[in-house]
Protein backbone atom coordinates (compact mmCIF):
# COMPACT_ATOMS: atom_id res chain seq x y z
CA UNK A 1 0.00 0.00 0.00
CA UNK A 2 1.32 3.42 -0.95
CA UNK A 3 2.26 5.80 1.84
CA UNK A 4 0.30 9.07 1.94
CA UNK A 5 3.20 11.07 0.55
CA UNK A 6 3.26 8.92 -2.63
CA UNK A 7 -0.50 9.13 -2.89
CA UNK A 8 -0.09 12.90 -2.83
CA UNK A 9 2.41 12.67 -5.69
CA UNK A 10 0.09 10.50 -7.77
CA UNK A 11 -2.98 12.65 -7.15
CA UNK A 12 -1.08 15.88 -7.75
CA UNK A 13 -0.20 14.51 -11.19
CA UNK A 14 -3.88 14.18 -12.04
CA UNK A 15 -5.00 17.44 -10.46
CA UNK A 16 -4.00 19.01 -13.78
CA UNK A 17 -4.51 16.15 -16.26
CA UNK A 18 -4.03 18.29 -19.36
CA UNK A 19 -0.68 19.53 -18.09
CA UNK A 20 0.39 16.00 -17.19
CA UNK A 21 -0.68 14.59 -20.55
CA UNK A 22 1.12 17.41 -22.36
CA UNK A 23 4.37 16.85 -20.47
CA UNK A 24 4.16 13.07 -20.83
CA UNK A 25 3.52 13.35 -24.57
CA UNK A 26 6.38 15.82 -25.00
CA UNK A 27 8.81 13.48 -23.30
CA UNK A 28 7.31 10.54 -25.18
CA UNK A 29 7.92 12.25 -28.53
CA UNK A 30 11.59 12.76 -27.68
CA UNK A 31 12.05 9.25 -26.30
CA UNK A 32 10.12 7.80 -29.24
CA UNK A 33 12.34 9.66 -31.73
CA UNK A 34 15.59 8.74 -30.07
CA UNK A 35 14.42 5.23 -29.21
CA UNK A 36 13.34 4.58 -32.76
CA UNK A 37 16.64 5.79 -34.16
CA UNK A 38 18.71 3.88 -31.60
CA UNK A 39 16.72 0.68 -32.16
CA UNK A 40 16.71 1.11 -35.91
CA UNK A 41 20.39 1.92 -36.05
CA UNK A 42 21.20 -1.09 -33.90
CA UNK A 43 18.96 -3.50 -35.82
CA UNK A 44 19.90 -2.15 -39.25
CA UNK A 45 23.62 -2.27 -38.53
CA UNK A 46 23.30 -5.86 -37.32
CA UNK A 47 21.16 -6.87 -40.27
CA UNK A 48 23.46 -5.16 -42.77
CA UNK A 49 26.58 -6.65 -41.23
CA UNK A 50 25.05 -10.11 -40.96
CA UNK A 51 23.55 -10.06 -44.43
CA UNK A 52 26.74 -8.76 -46.02
CA UNK A 53 29.04 -11.05 -44.04
CA UNK A 54 26.98 -14.06 -45.20
CA UNK A 55 28.15 -13.37 -48.76
CA UNK A 56 31.78 -13.69 -47.65
CA UNK A 57 32.47 -10.33 -49.28
CA UNK A 58 35.66 -9.54 -51.15
CA UNK A 59 37.94 -7.07 -49.39
CA UNK A 60 38.94 -5.61 -52.75
CA UNK A 61 37.66 -5.79 -56.32
CA UNK A 62 40.44 -5.33 -58.86
CA UNK A 63 39.37 -4.12 -62.30
CA UNK A 64 41.12 -5.63 -65.29
CA UNK A 65 40.30 -7.29 -68.58
CA UNK A 66 40.35 -10.79 -70.10
CA UNK A 67 41.90 -12.62 -67.15
CA UNK A 68 41.84 -16.42 -67.29
CA UNK A 69 41.47 -19.02 -64.50
CA UNK A 70 45.23 -19.56 -64.39
CA UNK A 71 45.88 -15.91 -63.63
CA UNK A 72 43.15 -15.88 -61.00
CA UNK A 73 44.90 -18.85 -59.37
CA UNK A 74 48.18 -16.89 -59.51
CA UNK A 75 46.49 -13.98 -57.79
CA UNK A 76 45.26 -16.33 -55.09
CA UNK A 77 48.89 -17.22 -54.37
CA UNK A 78 49.95 -13.62 -53.79
CA UNK A 79 51.11 -13.32 -50.13
CA UNK A 80 48.27 -12.09 -47.91
CA UNK A 81 45.52 -13.30 -50.24
CA UNK A 82 43.18 -15.80 -48.62
CA UNK A 83 41.00 -16.30 -51.71
CA UNK A 84 40.66 -14.86 -55.20
CA UNK A 85 37.82 -15.33 -57.62
CA UNK A 86 37.14 -13.96 -61.07
CA UNK A 87 33.85 -12.55 -62.30
CA UNK A 88 32.90 -11.51 -65.80
CA UNK A 89 31.05 -8.22 -66.00
CA UNK A 90 29.53 -6.64 -69.06
CA UNK A 91 26.99 -4.01 -69.92
CA UNK A 92 23.69 -4.77 -71.59
CA UNK A 93 20.51 -2.95 -72.42
CA UNK A 94 17.20 -4.55 -71.69
CA UNK A 95 14.07 -3.60 -73.57
CA UNK A 96 11.31 -2.52 -71.21
CA UNK A 97 8.93 -0.98 -73.78
CA UNK A 98 8.50 -0.60 -77.54
CA UNK A 99 11.29 2.00 -77.68
CA UNK A 100 12.41 1.91 -74.09
CA UNK A 101 15.65 0.40 -72.93
CA UNK A 102 17.33 0.29 -69.53
CA UNK A 103 20.93 -0.42 -68.58
CA UNK A 104 21.56 -3.85 -67.16
CA UNK A 105 24.80 -5.11 -65.62
CA UNK A 106 25.56 -8.58 -66.90
CA UNK A 107 27.44 -11.05 -64.70
CA UNK A 108 28.88 -14.41 -65.46
CA UNK A 109 30.11 -16.15 -62.34
CA UNK A 110 33.08 -18.48 -62.47
CA UNK A 111 31.17 -21.36 -60.91
CA UNK A 112 27.55 -21.02 -59.82
CA UNK A 113 27.82 -24.12 -57.66
CA UNK A 114 31.05 -23.16 -55.91
CA UNK A 115 31.01 -19.44 -55.14
CA UNK A 116 33.49 -18.46 -52.49
CA UNK A 117 33.43 -14.66 -52.52
CA UNK A 118 30.63 -12.08 -52.76
CA UNK A 119 28.09 -14.85 -53.10
CA UNK A 120 24.68 -14.40 -54.65
CA UNK A 121 21.73 -16.56 -53.58
CA UNK A 122 19.06 -18.21 -55.67
CA UNK A 123 15.78 -16.58 -54.77
CA UNK A 124 13.11 -18.01 -57.03
CA UNK A 125 12.94 -20.24 -60.12
CA UNK A 126 15.79 -22.14 -61.78
CA UNK A 127 19.41 -22.32 -60.64
CA UNK A 128 21.96 -22.09 -62.19
CA UNK A 129 21.08 -20.30 -65.48
CA UNK A 130 21.20 -22.47 -68.58
CA UNK A 131 22.04 -21.54 -72.16
CA UNK A 132 19.88 -18.74 -73.49
CA UNK A 133 18.64 -18.01 -69.98
CA UNK A 134 19.14 -15.19 -67.54
CA UNK A 135 18.51 -14.89 -63.82
CA UNK A 136 17.57 -11.38 -62.77
CA UNK A 137 18.50 -9.82 -59.44
CA UNK A 138 15.30 -9.85 -57.36
CA UNK A 139 14.88 -6.08 -57.46
CA UNK A 140 15.36 -6.04 -61.23
CA UNK A 141 12.45 -8.29 -62.13
CA UNK A 142 9.70 -5.70 -61.67
CA UNK A 143 12.12 -2.94 -62.67
CA UNK A 144 12.53 -4.63 -66.07
CA UNK A 145 8.79 -5.30 -66.34
CA UNK A 146 9.55 -9.00 -66.63
CA UNK A 147 8.18 -12.19 -65.12
CA UNK A 148 9.80 -15.54 -64.57
CA UNK A 149 9.39 -17.67 -67.69
CA UNK A 150 9.07 -14.67 -70.01
CA UNK A 151 11.50 -13.73 -72.76
CA UNK A 152 13.38 -10.45 -72.55
CA UNK A 153 15.29 -8.70 -75.29
CA UNK A 154 18.84 -7.58 -74.56
CA UNK A 155 21.30 -5.61 -76.64
CA UNK A 156 25.03 -6.17 -76.17
CA UNK A 157 27.73 -3.49 -76.52
CA UNK A 158 28.73 -5.21 -79.77
CA UNK A 159 25.27 -4.42 -81.15
CA UNK A 160 24.05 -8.02 -80.98
CA UNK A 161 20.38 -8.23 -79.95
CA UNK A 162 19.23 -11.48 -78.40
CA UNK A 163 16.22 -12.82 -76.60
CA UNK A 164 16.83 -14.56 -73.29
CA UNK A 165 14.38 -16.41 -71.06
CA UNK A 166 14.15 -15.21 -67.48
CA UNK A 167 14.20 -18.45 -65.51
CA UNK A 168 14.55 -17.12 -61.98
CA UNK A 169 15.75 -14.47 -59.59
CA UNK A 170 18.79 -14.18 -57.35
CA UNK A 171 19.56 -12.05 -54.33
CA UNK A 172 22.77 -10.04 -54.67
CA UNK A 173 23.26 -7.65 -51.74
CA UNK A 174 25.66 -5.60 -53.84
CA UNK A 175 23.02 -4.81 -56.47
CA UNK A 176 19.71 -3.05 -56.23
CA UNK A 177 17.44 -1.08 -58.50
CA UNK A 178 16.01 0.72 -55.47
CA UNK A 179 18.97 3.07 -55.17
CA UNK A 180 20.21 2.93 -58.79
CA UNK A 181 18.43 2.65 -62.11
CA UNK A 182 20.73 -0.17 -63.02
CA UNK A 183 19.59 -3.77 -62.95
CA UNK A 184 21.66 -6.93 -62.77
CA UNK A 185 21.36 -10.19 -64.70
CA UNK A 186 23.30 -13.44 -64.37
CA UNK A 187 24.16 -15.77 -67.23
CA UNK A 188 26.20 -18.91 -67.90
CA UNK A 189 29.33 -19.08 -70.03
CA UNK A 190 27.25 -20.64 -72.80
CA UNK A 191 24.91 -17.68 -72.83
CA UNK A 192 27.92 -15.36 -72.71
CA UNK A 193 29.14 -16.94 -75.94
CA UNK A 194 25.60 -16.77 -77.34
CA UNK A 195 25.70 -13.03 -76.71
CA UNK A 196 29.08 -12.82 -78.43
CA UNK A 197 30.88 -11.56 -75.33
CA UNK A 198 34.53 -12.24 -74.41
CA UNK A 199 34.94 -14.95 -71.74
CA UNK A 200 37.79 -13.30 -69.75
CA UNK A 201 37.29 -12.03 -66.21
CA UNK A 202 37.15 -8.26 -65.77
CA UNK A 203 36.81 -8.33 -61.99
CA UNK A 204 39.16 -10.15 -59.61
CA UNK A 205 37.68 -10.37 -56.11
CA UNK A 206 40.25 -10.63 -53.34
CA UNK A 207 39.79 -11.72 -49.74
CA UNK A 208 42.70 -10.83 -47.46
CA UNK A 209 43.87 -13.42 -44.94
CA UNK A 210 43.53 -12.80 -41.22
CA UNK A 211 41.07 -11.54 -38.62
CA UNK A 212 40.06 -7.91 -38.27
CA UNK A 213 41.68 -6.91 -41.52
CA UNK A 214 42.50 -3.21 -41.79
CA UNK A 215 42.11 -0.90 -44.78
CA UNK A 216 45.92 -0.57 -44.96
CA UNK A 217 46.34 -4.34 -45.12
CA UNK A 218 43.74 -4.53 -47.90
CA UNK A 219 45.52 -1.77 -49.85
CA UNK A 220 48.87 -3.51 -49.53
CA UNK A 221 47.50 -6.86 -50.72
CA UNK A 222 45.42 -5.27 -53.51
CA UNK A 223 48.51 -3.39 -54.75
CA UNK A 224 50.41 -6.68 -54.81
CA UNK A 225 47.61 -8.33 -56.84
CA UNK A 226 47.60 -5.42 -59.29
CA UNK A 227 51.36 -5.87 -59.64
CA UNK A 228 50.93 -9.61 -60.20
CA UNK A 229 48.32 -8.97 -62.90
CA UNK A 230 50.69 -6.50 -64.58
CA UNK A 231 53.43 -9.08 -64.50
CA UNK A 232 51.05 -11.57 -66.11
CA UNK A 233 50.20 -9.14 -68.89
CA UNK A 234 46.81 -8.10 -67.56
CA UNK A 235 46.93 -4.40 -66.86
CA UNK A 236 44.61 -3.18 -64.13
CA UNK A 237 42.99 0.23 -63.90
CA UNK A 238 42.51 0.22 -60.16
CA UNK A 239 40.52 -1.45 -57.46
CA UNK A 240 37.64 -0.67 -55.16
CA UNK A 241 37.93 -1.58 -51.49
CA UNK A 242 35.08 -0.79 -49.12
CA UNK A 243 35.83 -0.29 -45.42
CA UNK A 244 36.63 -3.79 -44.08
CA UNK A 245 33.92 -5.21 -41.83
CA UNK A 246 31.34 -2.70 -42.93
CA UNK A 247 28.59 -2.68 -45.49
CA UNK A 248 29.26 -0.77 -48.73
CA UNK A 249 26.18 1.33 -47.96
CA UNK A 250 27.46 2.38 -44.52
CA UNK A 251 28.64 5.76 -45.83
CA UNK A 252 25.06 6.44 -46.95
CA UNK A 253 23.27 5.02 -43.92
CA UNK A 254 25.47 6.48 -41.19
CA UNK A 255 24.92 10.19 -42.00
CA UNK A 256 21.16 9.56 -42.25
CA UNK A 257 21.15 7.91 -38.82
CA UNK A 258 23.33 10.67 -37.37
CA UNK A 259 20.96 13.31 -38.70
CA UNK A 260 17.91 11.51 -37.35
CA UNK A 261 19.62 11.02 -33.97
CA UNK A 262 20.29 14.75 -33.83
CA UNK A 263 16.62 15.48 -34.57
CA UNK A 264 15.56 13.00 -31.88
CA UNK A 265 17.94 14.60 -29.38
CA UNK A 266 16.60 18.02 -30.33
CA UNK A 267 13.01 17.00 -29.66
CA UNK A 268 14.10 15.45 -26.37
CA UNK A 269 15.87 18.70 -25.48
CA UNK A 270 12.67 20.62 -26.19
CA UNK A 271 10.78 18.18 -23.98
CA UNK A 272 13.37 18.90 -21.28
CA UNK A 273 12.61 22.62 -21.49
CA UNK A 274 8.89 21.92 -21.18
CA UNK A 275 9.50 19.75 -18.11
CA UNK A 276 11.68 22.52 -16.63
CA UNK A 277 8.93 25.08 -17.13
CA UNK A 278 6.21 22.76 -15.86
CA UNK A 279 8.11 21.77 -12.75
CA UNK A 280 8.99 25.42 -12.09
CA UNK A 281 5.28 26.24 -12.29
CA UNK A 282 4.43 23.28 -10.04
CA UNK A 283 7.01 24.36 -7.47
CA UNK A 284 5.68 27.92 -7.45
CA UNK A 285 2.15 26.59 -7.13
CA UNK A 286 3.10 24.19 -4.33
CA UNK A 287 5.34 26.48 -2.31
CA UNK A 288 2.75 26.58 0.48
CA UNK A 289 2.42 22.79 0.41
CA UNK A 290 6.19 22.39 0.61
CA UNK A 291 6.14 24.59 3.72
CA UNK A 292 3.38 22.41 5.20
CA UNK A 293 5.34 19.25 4.40
CA UNK A 294 8.34 20.69 6.23
CA UNK A 295 6.15 21.82 9.13
CA UNK A 296 4.85 18.29 9.62
CA UNK A 297 8.39 16.91 9.65
CA UNK A 298 9.45 16.30 6.04
CA UNK A 299 13.19 16.52 5.59
CA UNK A 300 14.61 18.32 2.56
CA UNK A 301 15.62 15.00 1.05
CA UNK A 302 12.08 13.70 1.43
CA UNK A 303 10.57 16.77 -0.19
CA UNK A 304 13.09 16.58 -3.05
CA UNK A 305 12.25 12.90 -3.42
CA UNK A 306 8.55 13.63 -3.77
CA UNK A 307 8.97 16.06 -6.63
CA UNK A 308 11.70 14.11 -8.38
CA UNK A 309 9.55 10.98 -8.22
CA UNK A 310 6.73 13.04 -9.67
CA UNK A 311 8.80 13.96 -12.73
CA UNK A 312 10.16 10.42 -12.92
CA UNK A 313 6.52 9.28 -13.20
CA UNK A 314 6.16 11.67 -16.12
CA UNK A 315 9.14 9.89 -17.66
CA UNK A 316 7.82 6.43 -16.84
CA UNK A 317 4.46 7.16 -18.43
CA UNK A 318 6.27 8.58 -21.45
CA UNK A 319 8.42 5.44 -21.62
CA UNK A 320 5.34 3.21 -21.56
CA UNK A 321 4.07 5.06 -24.62
CA UNK A 322 7.35 5.58 -26.44
CA UNK A 323 9.05 2.21 -25.98
CA UNK A 324 6.57 -0.03 -27.84
CA UNK A 325 5.84 2.66 -30.43
CA UNK A 326 9.54 3.30 -30.99
CA UNK A 327 10.29 -0.40 -31.33
CA UNK A 328 7.43 -0.85 -33.80
CA UNK A 329 8.50 2.19 -35.82
CA UNK A 330 12.11 0.99 -35.79
CA UNK A 331 10.99 -2.38 -37.10
CA UNK A 332 9.08 -0.68 -39.92
CA UNK A 333 12.08 1.53 -40.63
CA UNK A 334 14.43 -1.44 -40.78
CA UNK A 335 12.08 -3.23 -43.18
CA UNK A 336 11.95 -0.17 -45.42
CA UNK A 337 15.71 0.32 -45.33
CA UNK A 338 16.30 -3.41 -45.88
CA UNK A 339 14.19 -3.20 -49.02
CA UNK A 340 16.01 -0.06 -50.11
CA UNK A 341 19.45 -1.55 -49.50
CA UNK A 342 18.39 -4.98 -50.77
CA UNK A 343 19.47 -6.84 -47.67
CA UNK A 344 17.74 -9.78 -46.08
CA UNK A 345 16.33 -9.36 -42.57
CA UNK A 346 16.45 -12.08 -39.96
CA UNK A 347 14.21 -10.40 -37.37
CA UNK A 348 17.00 -9.23 -35.09
CA UNK A 349 15.61 -7.38 -32.05
CA UNK A 350 17.30 -4.36 -30.48
CA UNK A 351 19.73 -5.38 -27.73
CA UNK A 352 18.65 -4.87 -24.11
CA UNK A 353 21.03 -1.95 -23.74
CA UNK A 354 18.97 0.01 -26.28
CA UNK A 355 15.84 -0.51 -24.15
CA UNK A 356 17.89 0.37 -21.06
CA UNK A 357 19.17 3.52 -22.73
CA UNK A 358 15.62 4.56 -23.62
CA UNK A 359 14.55 4.01 -20.01
CA UNK A 360 17.52 6.05 -18.83
CA UNK A 361 16.69 8.87 -21.25
CA UNK A 362 12.97 8.80 -20.39
CA UNK A 363 13.55 8.89 -16.65
CA UNK A 364 16.78 10.89 -16.60
CA UNK A 365 15.80 13.78 -18.88
CA UNK A 366 12.79 14.98 -16.85
CA UNK A 367 14.61 14.41 -13.56
CA UNK A 368 17.59 16.43 -14.80
CA UNK A 369 15.33 19.14 -16.19
CA UNK A 370 13.43 19.28 -12.88
CA UNK A 371 16.48 19.28 -10.66
CA UNK A 372 17.05 23.01 -10.81
CA UNK A 373 13.50 24.16 -10.05
CA UNK A 374 13.08 21.46 -7.38
CA UNK A 375 16.34 22.37 -5.67
CA UNK A 376 15.42 26.03 -5.97
CA UNK A 377 11.95 25.34 -4.56
Amino acid at each position, binding site marked *: *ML*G*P*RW*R*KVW*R*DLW*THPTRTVLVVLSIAVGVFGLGMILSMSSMLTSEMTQSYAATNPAHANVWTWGVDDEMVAACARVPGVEAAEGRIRFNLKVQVGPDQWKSLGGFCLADYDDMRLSKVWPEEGAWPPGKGEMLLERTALTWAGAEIGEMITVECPNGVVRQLRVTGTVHDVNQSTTWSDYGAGYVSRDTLAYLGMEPGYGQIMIRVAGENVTADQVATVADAVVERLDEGGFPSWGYWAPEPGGHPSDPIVEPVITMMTALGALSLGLAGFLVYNTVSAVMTQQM*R*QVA*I*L*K*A*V*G*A*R*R*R*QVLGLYLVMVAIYGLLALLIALPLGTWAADQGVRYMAGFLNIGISGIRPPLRVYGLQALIALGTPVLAALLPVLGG
Partner: protein
Amino acid sequence: MDFARLFNGTETASRGPDHLITLSQVAKVYASEAGEFVALRDVDLEIDTGEFVTVVGKSGSGKSTLLNMLSGIDHPTSGEVWVNGTAVHTLNENQMATWRGKSLGIVFQFFQLLPTLTVVENIMLPMDFAGYLPRRKRRERALELLALVALCDQADKLPSELSGGQQQRVAIARALANDPCILLADEPTGNLDSRTADYTFRLFERLVEDGKTILMVTHDRDLARRGTRTIRLADGAIVDGAVRASREDGNVVGLPQMEREVSYVGA
Protein backbone atom coordinates in the same frame (compact mmCIF):
# COMPACT_ATOMS: atom_id res chain seq x y z
CA MET B 1 -12.79 5.51 24.73
CA ASP B 2 -9.56 5.97 26.63
CA PHE B 3 -7.67 8.57 24.66
CA ALA B 4 -4.88 8.89 27.17
CA ARG B 5 -3.29 5.77 25.69
CA LEU B 6 -2.84 7.70 22.43
CA PHE B 7 -0.33 9.97 24.13
CA ASN B 8 2.95 8.73 25.49
CA GLY B 9 5.07 11.58 24.19
CA THR B 10 5.19 13.51 27.43
CA GLU B 11 8.60 12.36 28.54
CA THR B 12 11.12 15.13 28.80
CA ALA B 13 14.80 15.04 28.12
CA SER B 14 17.35 15.32 30.89
CA ARG B 15 19.82 17.47 28.96
CA GLY B 16 19.81 21.27 28.82
CA PRO B 17 17.89 23.63 31.08
CA ASP B 18 15.42 22.29 33.64
CA HIS B 19 12.30 23.58 31.87
CA LEU B 20 10.58 21.91 28.92
CA ILE B 21 11.00 25.10 26.90
CA THR B 22 13.62 27.75 27.61
CA LEU B 23 14.28 30.85 25.56
CA SER B 24 17.33 32.75 26.66
CA GLN B 25 18.02 36.27 25.42
CA VAL B 26 16.41 35.47 22.07
CA ALA B 27 16.43 38.30 19.56
CA LYS B 28 15.22 38.31 15.99
CA VAL B 29 16.11 41.13 13.68
CA TYR B 30 14.93 41.31 10.07
CA ALA B 31 16.94 43.42 7.68
CA SER B 32 15.05 45.23 4.98
CA GLU B 33 15.64 48.12 2.61
CA ALA B 34 13.80 50.32 5.08
CA GLY B 35 16.30 49.35 7.77
CA GLU B 36 16.35 46.79 10.55
CA PHE B 37 13.16 45.56 12.12
CA VAL B 38 13.40 44.04 15.58
CA ALA B 39 10.73 41.36 15.83
CA LEU B 40 11.92 39.94 19.15
CA ARG B 41 14.19 41.64 21.66
CA ASP B 42 16.06 39.69 24.34
CA VAL B 43 13.23 37.36 25.16
CA ASP B 44 13.61 35.10 28.17
CA LEU B 45 10.90 32.51 28.59
CA GLU B 46 10.44 29.28 30.52
CA ILE B 47 7.61 26.84 30.06
CA ASP B 48 7.16 23.59 31.95
CA THR B 49 5.52 20.34 31.03
CA GLY B 50 1.73 20.38 31.19
CA GLU B 51 1.36 24.13 30.88
CA PHE B 52 -1.21 25.65 28.57
CA VAL B 53 0.38 28.94 27.67
CA THR B 54 -1.48 31.48 25.62
CA VAL B 55 0.36 34.29 23.86
CA VAL B 56 -1.40 37.58 23.28
CA GLY B 57 -0.34 40.87 21.84
CA LYS B 58 -1.14 43.27 19.07
CA SER B 59 -0.38 42.54 15.46
CA GLY B 60 3.35 42.87 14.88
CA SER B 61 4.16 42.38 18.52
CA GLY B 62 6.19 39.27 17.74
CA LYS B 63 3.75 36.48 18.63
CA SER B 64 4.19 34.47 15.44
CA THR B 65 7.93 35.14 15.42
CA LEU B 66 8.12 33.70 18.91
CA LEU B 67 6.29 30.60 17.72
CA ASN B 68 8.59 30.33 14.70
CA MET B 69 11.62 30.42 17.02
CA LEU B 70 10.18 27.53 19.01
CA SER B 71 9.19 25.49 15.99
CA GLY B 72 12.49 26.10 14.25
CA ILE B 73 10.70 27.54 11.23
CA ASP B 74 12.93 30.57 11.79
CA HIS B 75 16.30 30.98 13.51
CA PRO B 76 17.03 33.56 16.18
CA THR B 77 19.48 36.30 15.34
CA SER B 78 20.95 35.77 18.81
CA GLY B 79 20.12 33.86 21.95
CA GLU B 80 19.30 30.24 22.67
CA VAL B 81 16.18 28.17 22.21
CA TRP B 82 15.97 24.93 24.15
CA VAL B 83 13.02 22.64 23.68
CA ASN B 84 12.81 19.38 25.58
CA GLY B 85 16.59 19.23 25.95
CA THR B 86 17.32 20.08 22.32
CA ALA B 87 19.27 23.20 21.43
CA VAL B 88 16.95 24.17 18.59
CA HIS B 89 19.04 27.18 17.60
CA THR B 90 21.94 24.87 16.65
CA LEU B 91 20.02 22.48 14.38
CA ASN B 92 20.48 22.50 10.63
CA GLU B 93 17.52 22.23 8.27
CA ASN B 94 17.45 18.43 8.14
CA GLN B 95 17.97 17.96 11.87
CA MET B 96 15.29 20.53 12.44
CA ALA B 97 12.77 18.72 10.24
CA THR B 98 13.45 15.40 11.96
CA TRP B 99 13.25 16.97 15.41
CA ARG B 100 10.13 18.95 14.54
CA GLY B 101 8.38 15.87 13.17
CA LYS B 102 8.93 13.96 16.40
CA SER B 103 8.76 16.65 19.05
CA LEU B 104 6.26 19.24 17.90
CA GLY B 105 2.77 19.41 16.57
CA ILE B 106 1.86 22.61 14.79
CA VAL B 107 -1.67 23.91 14.27
CA PHE B 108 -2.16 26.83 11.89
CA GLN B 109 -4.89 29.40 11.62
CA PHE B 110 -5.81 28.31 8.10
CA PHE B 111 -5.56 24.58 8.85
CA GLN B 112 -3.07 23.93 6.04
CA LEU B 113 -4.28 20.47 5.14
CA LEU B 114 -3.02 19.03 1.87
CA PRO B 115 -5.93 19.27 -0.56
CA THR B 116 -5.26 16.08 -2.54
CA LEU B 117 -5.01 13.84 0.51
CA THR B 118 -8.01 12.55 2.39
CA VAL B 119 -8.54 13.45 6.02
CA VAL B 120 -7.02 10.22 7.30
CA GLU B 121 -4.08 10.48 4.88
CA ASN B 122 -3.37 14.01 6.08
CA ILE B 123 -3.08 12.64 9.60
CA MET B 124 -0.90 9.73 8.49
CA LEU B 125 1.50 12.05 6.64
CA PRO B 126 3.64 13.14 9.63
CA MET B 127 3.94 9.48 10.68
CA ASP B 128 5.04 8.63 7.15
CA PHE B 129 7.80 11.27 7.19
CA ALA B 130 8.96 10.46 10.72
CA GLY B 131 8.70 6.69 10.28
CA TYR B 132 6.50 6.70 13.37
CA LEU B 133 4.86 3.34 14.15
CA PRO B 134 4.89 0.34 11.80
CA ARG B 135 3.22 1.22 8.52
CA ARG B 136 0.15 -0.97 9.14
CA LYS B 137 -0.52 0.73 12.48
CA ARG B 138 -0.57 4.25 11.13
CA ARG B 139 -4.07 4.25 9.72
CA GLU B 140 -5.33 2.73 12.95
CA ARG B 141 -3.74 5.54 14.95
CA ALA B 142 -5.00 8.17 12.52
CA LEU B 143 -8.54 6.84 12.93
CA GLU B 144 -8.17 6.90 16.72
CA LEU B 145 -7.04 10.51 16.53
CA LEU B 146 -10.01 11.25 14.31
CA ALA B 147 -12.22 9.70 16.98
CA LEU B 148 -10.61 12.05 19.47
CA VAL B 149 -11.76 15.00 17.39
CA ALA B 150 -15.09 13.34 16.57
CA LEU B 151 -14.49 13.03 12.86
CA CYS B 152 -14.30 9.28 12.35
CA ASP B 153 -17.03 9.38 9.76
CA GLN B 154 -15.12 11.92 7.68
CA ALA B 155 -11.93 9.87 7.38
CA ASP B 156 -12.02 9.30 3.65
CA LYS B 157 -13.24 12.72 2.62
CA LEU B 158 -11.08 15.41 1.11
CA PRO B 159 -10.47 18.53 3.25
CA SER B 160 -12.49 20.61 0.81
CA GLU B 161 -15.57 18.60 1.78
CA LEU B 162 -15.29 19.63 5.44
CA SER B 163 -16.28 22.81 7.26
CA GLY B 164 -13.63 25.14 8.68
CA GLY B 165 -14.13 23.81 12.20
CA GLN B 166 -13.85 20.23 11.01
CA GLN B 167 -10.70 21.04 9.09
CA GLN B 168 -9.17 22.59 12.18
CA ARG B 169 -9.97 19.47 14.17
CA VAL B 170 -8.28 17.39 11.48
CA ALA B 171 -5.28 19.72 11.71
CA ILE B 172 -5.15 19.14 15.48
CA ALA B 173 -5.34 15.39 14.94
CA ARG B 174 -2.49 15.72 12.43
CA ALA B 175 -0.46 17.72 14.94
CA LEU B 176 -0.89 14.86 17.40
CA ALA B 177 0.02 12.16 14.88
CA ASN B 178 3.56 11.53 16.10
CA ASP B 179 2.56 11.97 19.74
CA PRO B 180 4.64 15.10 20.34
CA CYS B 181 4.96 16.46 23.85
CA ILE B 182 4.42 20.04 22.68
CA LEU B 183 1.71 21.58 20.54
CA LEU B 184 2.22 25.00 19.00
CA ALA B 185 -0.90 26.67 17.73
CA ASP B 186 -0.87 29.91 15.75
CA GLU B 187 -4.29 31.52 16.04
CA PRO B 188 -6.03 28.14 15.75
CA THR B 189 -9.41 29.68 16.45
CA GLY B 190 -8.86 32.83 14.43
CA ASN B 191 -10.76 31.50 11.46
CA LEU B 192 -13.55 29.79 13.38
CA ASP B 193 -16.88 30.96 14.74
CA SER B 194 -17.12 31.35 18.51
CA ARG B 195 -18.87 28.02 19.06
CA THR B 196 -16.33 26.08 17.03
CA ALA B 197 -13.52 28.06 18.65
CA ASP B 198 -14.76 27.05 22.08
CA TYR B 199 -15.04 23.46 20.89
CA THR B 200 -11.43 23.57 19.69
CA PHE B 201 -10.24 25.18 22.89
CA ARG B 202 -11.88 22.48 25.00
CA LEU B 203 -10.00 19.96 22.93
CA PHE B 204 -6.74 21.70 23.79
CA GLU B 205 -7.66 21.72 27.47
CA ARG B 206 -8.25 18.02 27.36
CA LEU B 207 -4.89 17.45 25.69
CA VAL B 208 -3.20 19.42 28.45
CA GLU B 209 -4.96 17.21 30.97
CA ASP B 210 -3.51 14.24 29.14
CA GLY B 211 -0.02 15.65 29.63
CA LYS B 212 0.59 17.77 26.54
CA THR B 213 2.17 21.19 26.73
CA ILE B 214 0.49 23.80 24.55
CA LEU B 215 1.64 27.21 23.45
CA MET B 216 -1.11 29.04 21.64
CA VAL B 217 -1.05 32.41 19.97
CA THR B 218 -4.43 34.09 20.03
CA HIS B 219 -6.11 37.42 19.63
CA ASP B 220 -9.05 36.32 21.72
CA ARG B 221 -8.50 37.58 25.27
CA ASP B 222 -11.38 35.50 26.64
CA LEU B 223 -9.88 32.34 25.30
CA ALA B 224 -6.41 33.42 26.38
CA ARG B 225 -7.55 33.69 29.95
CA ARG B 226 -8.52 30.02 29.92
CA GLY B 227 -4.86 28.94 29.60
CA THR B 228 -2.71 28.17 32.63
CA ARG B 229 -0.59 31.18 31.82
CA THR B 230 -0.81 34.12 29.48
CA ILE B 231 2.21 35.80 27.96
CA ARG B 232 1.79 39.32 26.73
CA LEU B 233 4.07 40.58 24.00
CA ALA B 234 4.57 44.18 22.97
CA ASP B 235 7.09 45.46 20.46
CA GLY B 236 8.95 42.15 20.46
CA ALA B 237 9.36 41.94 24.21
CA ILE B 238 7.49 39.93 26.82
CA VAL B 239 5.81 42.36 29.11
CA ASP B 240 3.98 39.84 31.23
CA GLY B 241 4.01 36.12 31.97
CA ALA B 242 7.58 35.19 31.08
CA VAL B 243 8.01 33.08 34.16
CA ARG B 244 5.47 30.74 35.64
CA ALA B 245 4.23 32.10 38.92
CA SER B 246 3.88 29.59 41.68
CA ARG B 247 0.36 28.90 42.89
CA GLU B 248 1.52 29.29 46.44
CA ASP B 249 2.44 32.95 46.09
CA GLY B 250 -1.06 33.72 44.88
CA ASN B 251 0.24 35.53 41.85
CA VAL B 252 -0.72 33.19 39.08
CA VAL B 253 -0.89 34.87 35.73
CA GLY B 254 -3.94 33.95 33.72
CA LEU B 255 -5.36 31.39 36.11
CA PRO B 256 -6.83 28.48 34.22
CA GLN B 257 -10.52 28.27 33.96
CA MET B 258 -10.98 24.87 35.47
CA GLU B 259 -14.59 24.58 34.49
CA ARG B 260 -13.61 22.26 31.68
CA GLU B 261 -16.41 20.16 30.48
CA VAL B 262 -15.46 16.59 31.03
CA SER B 263 -17.66 15.40 28.20
CA TYR B 264 -14.85 15.85 25.70
CA VAL B 265 -15.48 16.10 22.07
CA GLY B 266 -15.99 12.66 20.69
CA ALA B 267 -15.31 10.92 23.96
